[in-house]
């Protein structure tokens, strides 16, 4: 049984078609890495799956554990178990991190018909997760992401994921802008959350994150479609050779689709 099945997905942003027939199937417990040159549609995929306004799906379907994901509001997608770790988490002054997270968790639980957590039970849960994530609880008393360093913001994303316990986590270039220590911490957090019934889609521009999170599958997204799939050796090949070689097997890809080789 699949967890996520994307079939022939086409999506436009500001009138421009970015995804042009993307298909991808993810089974429970699997970790899929999606790599690709700049402008291939990597971030668009995450935003379309999370339901952001301004991303218009023109064709194709997304099935999430038997539901039509595209028919759900963003908050409903969260409640059924989809989590997007943002490339650029926003700062929200005036909204306390803990308050926000409890409101989010309880809204999800309510949607699923589960009882809401009172502050005692919530705090206990948070303490457990903090330990796993090695995050200081000082972070909790601040406003959401306000004044956080780049690394703190990304760790906060993973921490939120740990508390909300989604079925499918999409990491949108979570590794970008992180130094090697922060990258390792984020990877450790993700690894601690791996489980047979939780899947990950890791969108990344660089191979180095995959040194710390072992993917089951690696896909190349170029020209708005998955054009190549393999195991982690594919990531290494991309690291060494860039994307230009794909033009031989995929003559339909234009040169521009394959520009922006990984550093």
């Amino acid at each position: 049984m699949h967890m996520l099945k994307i079939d022939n997905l086409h999506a436009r942003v500001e009138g421009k078609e970015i995804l042009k027939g993307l298909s991808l199937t993810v089974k429970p417990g699997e970790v899929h890495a999606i790599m690709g040159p700049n402008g291939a549609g990597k971030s668009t995929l995450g935003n379309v799956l999370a339901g952001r306004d301004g991303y218009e799906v023109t064709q194709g379907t997304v099935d999430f554990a038997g539901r039509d994901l595209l028919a759900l509001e963003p908050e409903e997608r969260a409640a059924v178990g989809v989590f997007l770790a943002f490339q650029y988490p926003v700062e929200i002054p005036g909204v306390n991190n803990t308050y926000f997270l409890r409101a989010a968790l309880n809204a999800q639980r309510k949607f699923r018909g589960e009882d809401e957590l009172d502050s005692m039970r919530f705090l206990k849960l948070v303490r457990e997760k903090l330990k796993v994530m090695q995050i200081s609880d000082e972070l909790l008393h601040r406003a959401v992401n306000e004044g956080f360093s780049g690394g703190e913001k990304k760790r906060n994303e993973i921490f939120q994921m740990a508390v909300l316990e989604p079925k499918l986590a999409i990491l949108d270039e979570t590794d970008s802008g992180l130094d090697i220590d922060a990258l390792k911490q984020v990877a450790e957090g993700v690894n601690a959350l791996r489980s047979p019934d939780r899947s990950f889609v890791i969108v990344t521009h660089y191979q180095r994150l995959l040194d710390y999170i072992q993917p089951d599958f690696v896909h190349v997204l170029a020209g708005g479609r998955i054009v190549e799939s393999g195991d982690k050796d594919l990531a290494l090949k991309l690291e060494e050779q860039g994307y230009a070689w794909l033009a031989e097997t995929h003559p339909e890809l234009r040169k521009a689709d394959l520009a922006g080789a990984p550093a």
Partner: protein
Amino acid sequence: MNPLPSPFVRAALDAADGLPDSGIAWLDIARRENLQAFAEGGLPEGRNEAWKYTPLRALSQRAFVLADRTAAAGIAVDPTLFTLPGVDGARIVFVDGAFRADLSSLDADGIELAPLSAALSSQPEPLRFALANRYRRGAADAFVHLNAALATDGFVLRIAEGATVSRPVHVVHVSSSSQADTAWHVRLLVEVGKDAAADIVEHFVSAGDATQLGTVVADVVLREGARLGLVVLQDASSATTLVRRGHVRIDAGAQATLHALELGGGLVRHELHADLDGDGARFDSRGVFALAGRQHADTQLEIRHKARNTASDALWRGIADGRSRGVFRGAILVAEGADGADAALSNKNLLLSGMAEIDTKPELEIYADEVKAAHGATIGQLDERSLFYLRSRGIPLAEARSLLTLAFCRAALESLQNDTLREYLGERLVAHLPTGPAE
């Protein structure tokens, strides 16, 4: 001068005719002078810069009779209507502008609190300056003249020198449901003695939806080294027209802090003038207005630095939804010789609907040296990225909007020291927000 007085003015003249003399010669003369000044000037019109964004044409066509004092004394009012958490000191309640002894409790340590009528009958002379000389023709606007001509009730509050009054004094204005198309006028006089400290919570509520006009003119004096925390919670029904004008004089080393929360009312004008008269005086003001429907609220802040090393900090937030209109004018004057003044003013506004309107106008006039002054005003919308972030974590749209709107106002309320009251004001604000919490 209008050849034909408007229905509003005619009704005020009729109301004055029906008022008995006070028996105090100077007071009766002052009332007549103010009435004359009001009748000659009429209500401000569009040409009047101070009223540019608050047109009164519709109001001028309405006729309000004076609220019946005898009737007001008999109206049943449930005290839970105005009970406020964290506000447990002396209380003075006015129903349709009439003092209600049965709902008030005037005794508390360190304070002397008396209804205006009682103060006038026992010792009128100390009130002469405030009631007769202060607002002369040309030195006051139409509503101040109207209030001076027609206000027969109010209070005199004195905080004794050196006294620290720990429990906030609760001032309540109730608009009743039983007297439609009536007007009431209340006059407040407050003196905080040298080195004294006190808190006052002024509270506007409605017991129904009667169309009423209320005016309040408040004069507050802080003597040297005094401290005053003033909270104004305006939670009246949308049928109410309210005009409140406060004047605060702050002597050397004294500090006044205002927190204002404007939630209700149909047409509301709130003017606050602060004079920093003594060296080292300080005035902090914080306020939020949250409007919906067809509400119109106009806040006018005038802060005058007139002595050395004075400081003022104004932080106001406005929210307008529906077809409402918010107006904010914040004017800071630093007079010649007021060297070392430090003035800051920030007004940020949030438009939640395409039909709502906000007009904001910060003004700065500086005639002194070595002055630090900063001011800024913005009008914006809820940040779409923040909304999506909250929703992507599972928070429903309505709740996300409410959360962000409250966050926007938080800075204006967080400095209120009274935790219990601050939390309550936050809850009232959330309940009032157009999108409201999910449940």
